[in-house]
C-alpha cells in the first residue's frame, strides 16, 4: 500500500500542467546526460574535422586571448611626454609614441593615454587561447580523444580480464575462487595513483603506461561483480539442464551464464568509465599522464594554474576553467546515466558505487 505512495504531490492543475509534464519527462529520461555524452563522443571521433584550429599550433602574439564574449579592458592614464622613458618613475610616454596618439605632442606635455589592461576576445578563439597561444576549444575537442581512448581501452581490456576471472572464480569456487578474490582484495587495497607515479618515474610517461595502470585497477571491480552474479546463476535450473545435456564448461559459461550477467556488466561499465576518466585526468594533471604537447583535459587544467593572478579582470582564468568544465560535465553525465541505467535494468544493483 504505502509502497506506491511516493512523496510527490499532485501537480497543481492551474499554473501549468504542461510544465510539470516536461519536468517529469526530464526526470524520467536522462535526456541531457545522453546528449552531452553523445557530444563528447562526437567531438572525440571527429576531432580533426570539427576543431577550428590545430590544437598544437602556437601563436606567440596571441597568447592568453580571452573568450569571444570578453570586451577589451582599457584604462585612461595621464602620462608625461619625455624623450626617453625611465623605468620606475612617474607615468611617462616617449615622444614618438605620444605623437602617434597626438601629432602635436611636445616634450613636457601631459597626454591622455589608453592603456590596454587586457585585450578583448575574438571569434578566432571562441574559448580563448592558452599561454602558448593555442586554441582552447580545439584542445578540448582533441582532449576528448585521449579521455575516450583511455576509457575505451581500459574498459575493454579490464572488462575482459575481469569477466573471465569473475566467471572462473564463481564457477569453480573453492581454492580458485579464494585465490582470485584475495588477489582482487589486494589490488583494490593498493593506492593506485601512487603506483602509477612510481611506474611513470621508472618507465616514463606514455598513454600505454597510463592505460596499463588503469586496467590493473579496473578489472578487479568487474571480477568481483561478475563472481557474485555467477554464484547466483550457477544453481539455476537452466544451468543444470545444460550440464545434463552434456554442454562443456566453456559453453555453459559463455552461452548460458554470461548473457545473464550483461545487465550488470553494462551498469558497472558505465559507472567505471567516469572513474577512469577522472583518474586519467588526475594523472595528466600531475604530469604523470600522457606527456605534452598532446592535449589532455587534466594537462590543460594544469597549464592554466600559473596564470590565475589578476582574477577575472586581468587573469587568464579560462585556461584552467574550460577543460575542467568538460571533465565535470562528462563525468556527471556518466554518473547520471549510470544511475538511471542501474534503476532501469536492475534495481538490485543499488549498492554498486
Amino acid at each position, binding site marked *: *500500500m*504505502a509502497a*506506491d505512495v*511516493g512523496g*510527490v*504531490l*499532485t501537480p497543481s492543475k492551474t499554473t501549468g500542467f504542461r510544465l510539470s509534464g516536461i519536468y517529469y519527462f526530464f526526470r524520467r529520461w536522462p535526456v541531457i546526460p545522453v546528449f552531452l555524452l553523445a557530444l563528447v563522443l562526437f567531438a572525440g571521433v571527429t576531432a580533426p574535422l570539427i576543431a577550428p584550429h590545430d590544437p598544437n599550433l602556437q601563436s606567440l602574439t596571441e597568447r592568453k586571448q580571452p573568450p569571444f564574449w570578453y570586451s577589451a579592458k582599457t584604462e585612461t592614464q595621464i602620462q608625461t611626454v619625455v624623450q626617453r622613458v625611465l623605468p620606475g618613475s612617474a607615468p611617462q610616454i616617449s615622444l614618438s609614441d605620444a605623437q602617434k596618439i597626438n601629432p602635436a605632442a611636445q616634450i613636457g606635455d601631459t597626454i591622455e593615454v589608453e592603456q590596454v589592461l587586457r585585450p578583448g576576445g575574438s571569434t578566432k578563439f571562441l574559448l580563448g587561447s592558452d599561454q602558448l597561444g593555442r586554441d582552447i576549444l580545439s584542445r578540448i575537442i582533441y582532449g576528448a580523444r585521449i579521455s575516450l581512448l583511455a576509457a575505451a581501452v581500459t574498459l575493454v581490456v579490464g572488462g575482459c580480464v575481469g569477466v573471465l576471472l569473475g566467471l572462473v572464480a564463481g564457477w569453480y569456487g573453492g581454492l580458485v575462487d579464494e585465490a582470485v578474490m584475495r588477489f582482487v582484495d589486494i589490488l583494490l587495497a593498493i593506492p593506485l595513483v601512487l603506483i602509477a607515479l612510481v611506474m611513470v618515474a621508472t618507465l616514463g610517461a606514455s598513454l600505454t603506461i597510463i592505460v596499463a595502470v588503469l586496467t590493473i585497477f579496473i578489472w578487479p571491480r568487474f571480477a568481483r561483480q561478475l563472481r557474485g552474479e555467477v554464484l547466483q546463476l550457477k544453481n539455476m535450473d537452466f544451468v543444470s539442464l545444460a550440464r545434463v545435456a552434456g554442454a562443456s564448461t566453456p559453453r555453459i559459461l559463455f552461452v548460458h551464464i554470461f548473457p545473464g550477467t550483461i545487465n550488470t556488466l553494462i551498469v558497472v561499465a558505465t559507472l567505471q568509465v567516469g572513474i577512469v576518466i577522472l583518474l586519467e585526468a588526475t594523472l595528466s594533471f600531475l604530469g604523470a599522464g600522457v606527456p605534452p604537447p598532446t592535449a589532455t583535459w587534466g594537462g590543460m587544467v594544469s597549464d592554466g594554474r600559473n596564470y590565475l593572478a589578476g582574477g577575472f579582470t586581468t587573469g587568464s582564468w579560462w585556461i584552467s576553467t574550460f577543460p575542467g568544465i568538460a571533465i565535470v560535465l562528462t563525468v556527471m553525465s556518466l554518473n547520471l546515466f549510470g544511475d538511471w541505467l542501474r534503476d532501469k535494468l536492475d534495481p538490485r544493483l543499488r549498492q554498486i558505487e
Partner: protein
Amino acid sequence: MVTQAATERDVVLRVNDLRTYFQTRWGTVKAVDGISFDLRRGETLGIVGESGSGKSVTMLSLMRLIPMPPGRIVSGSIMLDGEDLLQLSDGEMNRVRGSKIALIIQDPMTSLNPVFTIGNQVSEAIAIHQNIPKRSVMEQALSVLRKVNIPAAESRMRDYPHQLSGGMRQRVVGAIGISCQPQVLIADEPTTSLDVTIQAQYLALLKELQQDSNVALIFITHDFGIVAKMCDRVAVMYAGRIVEQGSVRDIFNRPSHPYTEALLASVPRMEEDVDRLYSIEGQPPTLHDLPPGCPFADRCQYVMERCREEYPTRTTISEGHDASCWRLI
C-alpha cells in the same frame, strides 16, 4: 440495563468514523474510509482482508504512525481510555505508544534492530514509560522475557538479534509488546514467516498472555484459520471499509456480505473433499478514483444495479452483527 452499562464500561477502545487518506501523484487514495468499531477488555478482535484492503493502514492509524506526508488522518476519533488519541500532541502520543497501546509487528526477522542487544530493545519501552531506576528496568525486562518463555533469558539479554532463531525473535517482539502492560495490543500478521508448529506455539502463548493480563487484542490477518482459533469478534475489511462485523460464530455461520462469503469459501477445510479451491475472481480495486457505488460490485456474483450507484448502508442482522450490502435491505 445493568449488563448494558457493564459492557459500556468495558470498552477500552472506540474507533469512530476513522478516515486516512494519502495524497499521491494519481490523486487521493482513501486507504481507510470511515471505519468504526469497539473493543472490550480481554476481547480479541480479528481484522481480516486481502492485502491492500486497508488493514495495515488501520493499524498504523491507531498508533498514529502514518507517514505524513503523504498520509493524513482526515477525520474520526480514536477513544482510548477516555481520551481521543487524535487530539493528543506528538509528545503526549509518544507516552501513549508502547504503554497503553502496543504493537507486535509482522516479520520477526526484520522487526528487531540489528545493532542493539535484546535486553536493550526490550528494556527501551520500560525505560521510556516507567520512571524507575535502571536496575529495576533490567529486572522487569528479564521477567517479561521469562513470561514469553525465552530459555536462559538472562544470557539472551546480551545477545544480538541475529543470534536468535525466528521463533525466538518473534517471542522477543511479543515481549516488547507486553512489557508495559498495555490496554490494547495490536498484532499485525504476527506469524506469517514462521513454520506451522512454531506458529501454533506462539499463538497459544499470546492467548495465555492475554488471559493473564486481560489485554484487548487486535489481530490483523488474512488467515481465517487463525481468526477461528484466536478471535472473539471479526471485522472484514474491503477497500478501506469494514463491510461486515460480528462475533466469530455469526461470521462463520451466517456470513452476510458476499465478500465474507467468498473469503470463507476460499479457506481450505479438512473435512470437505473439494477438487478445487474457490478463489475470488478479479482484483481488489485501486483505491483512488473509486466509483460511487459498492467497491466489491465488479467481483460480486449477486451484483444489482443499485450496487453501482450508491454505497450500501449498514444493516444490523442480529445483535453485534452488521454488514453493508443492498441484498440485506
